[in-house]
């Protein structure tokens, strides 16, 4: 199994949405319009307005990725069935509360985070605990591209071409003990570089570091990816540089960003959103259209692509986000109780 390349299932047909080039071509040049509304009085909506201005560059400038994001060597995905979310949207619309609760805050502030040098420690119930450096992240395992749907618990979704390696490779490397039943993730938290960690208010009242967890079989599943890049280059900081988890059949908050420690354990690890609101966010957080969030429906989602207001981008949400190959892991689990 280890040498055969795993291909995730895809079930998406959306012919009516456009790709990155068309998106850029459509952009209007509205550079110099002075545009200030009542709601720009406050910092966070000011950012929304700033974002509005930022988008009026020429299309040429926009497609160029900042040179600071290292181009990666990787095996390209052959999957052409899904319309990708444009690069600009993937890197400007993020939930990364360590930099603020507004979706545009990570893009505005994440550059203050140091991602190189980096140490990722893997320890706990294993024979060979190890640490991985920034360079190891790109060189230790062969990198490959995986085009995954990302379904946010807030009922929007994107399609992102990640570059990374399977988490299973990393776990095998440290030789887990048979007593290891869960994998706990801890992410970077540095008050000097992250305004949301420094100020409880800016960070949405969350206790940092952000922690997440998976069951061992979920962590070993070939879909579970450690991403180090997207769109062919190293991850932008706001997307969780230099290394993040991507678990495509679970809501986005499970896919922890900027990971510094992975610990193998025999106990179900605490997870940040579950601690904060246990009746709203469970440990499993599998995408499931029939289990609604207490405050909103999860039956459908809006796919973020292109086309502005008129895009007919609402689609039905699928069980496990359409990745039906994971279903067998949950055959004995009541998904309504274990949401």
């Amino acid at each position, binding site marked *: 199994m280890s040498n055969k390349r795993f291909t995730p299932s895809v079930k998406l047909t959306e012919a009516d949405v456009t790709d990155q080039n068309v998106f850029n071509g459509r952009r209007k040049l509205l550079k110099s319009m002075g545009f200030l509304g*009542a*709601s720009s009085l406050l910092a966070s909506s000011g950012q*929304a307005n700033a974002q*509005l201005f930022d988008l009026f560059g020429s299309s040429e400038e926009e497609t160029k990725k900042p040179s600071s994001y290292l181009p990666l060597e990787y095996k390209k995905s052959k999957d052409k069935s899904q319309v990708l979310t444009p690069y600009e949207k993937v890197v400007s619309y993020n939930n990364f509360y360590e930099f603020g609760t507004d*979706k545009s805050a990570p893009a505005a502030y994440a550059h203050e985070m140091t991602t190189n040098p980096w140490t990722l420690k893997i320890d706990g119930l294993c024979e060979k605990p190890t640490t991985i450096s920034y360079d190891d992240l790109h060189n230790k395992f062969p990198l490959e591209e995986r085009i995954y749907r990302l379904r946010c618990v807030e009922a*929007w979704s994107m399609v992102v071409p990640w570059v990374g390696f399977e988490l299973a490779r990393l776990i095998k490397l440290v030789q887990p003990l048979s007593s290891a039943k869960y994998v706990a993730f801890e992410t970077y938290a540095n008050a000097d570089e992250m305004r949301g960690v420094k100020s409880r208010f800016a960070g949405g009242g969350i206790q940092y570091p952000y922690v997440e967890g998976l069951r061992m079989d979920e962590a070993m599943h070939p879909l579970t990816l450690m991403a180090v890049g997207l769109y062919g280059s190293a991850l932008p900081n706001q997307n969780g540089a230099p290394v993040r988890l991507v678990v495509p059949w679970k809501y986005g908050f499970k896919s922890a960003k900027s990971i510094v420690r992975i610990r193998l354990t025999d106990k179900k690890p605490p997870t940040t959103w579950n601690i904060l609101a246990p009746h709203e966010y469970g440990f499993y957080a599998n995408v499931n259209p029939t289990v609604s969030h207490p405050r909103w429906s999860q039956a459908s989602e809006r796919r973020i692509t292109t086309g502005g207001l008129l895009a007919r981008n*609402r689609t039905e949400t699928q069980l496990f986000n359409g990745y039906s190959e994971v279903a067998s892991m949950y055959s004995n689990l009541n998904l309504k109780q274990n949401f």
Partner: protein
Amino acid sequence: MKRLLSKPLRISNNVRVTAKTLIHLIVLGYLGGLFYFGLNDALGADPVKTLIHNSGLTAVILLLITLVISPLAQRLPCADLMKFRRLFGVYAFFAALYHLAIFTVFDLQMNIGLLISEIIRRPYITVGLITFILLLALSLTSFDRIKRKMGKHWQSLHNYVYLTLFLALLHFSWSEKTLLQTSLYYWLVAFVVMTTRSMKIKRLFKFK
């Protein structure tokens, strides 16, 4: 009450007309501009969300301005300011209508069944709808003719504006994923605005 100016401030007809024109231009320009940029996919990654957020905020801000006008008119003093109050109030309703329309047409994409089930099942949307209906009632009864017809009932109906603000802020806070977010600033501003009218509010509760 302390007065800020020794002589009452007067606003001439010309100034009033100019100021009102400007207010129309700013509010309609802002909401229209947002819509235009949204159509052209120039409102960030998710133009629908940006529009919902900015229109909701606009409604709340206009409501706060509406509520600050009469204490300001008393304290300056400048009775002519009162001639602007209805304009802001009706625009608060208009922004809320725009907010609801964007949500229904572009977020739910005209799935009316989903709209109804969301209104019933999501408390924060239920509260939004109640707020909207209150704003609608206040706007419909804001014309001079109706106001005169309603006599003293008018004031008792329009005292619901305080409840409206409270519910709008509740809807706002409830829509956020965690408690410590932007809406707290608005609660703070609302609190300050309310303290300027504390006499009135005390009176309201005594006579009820």
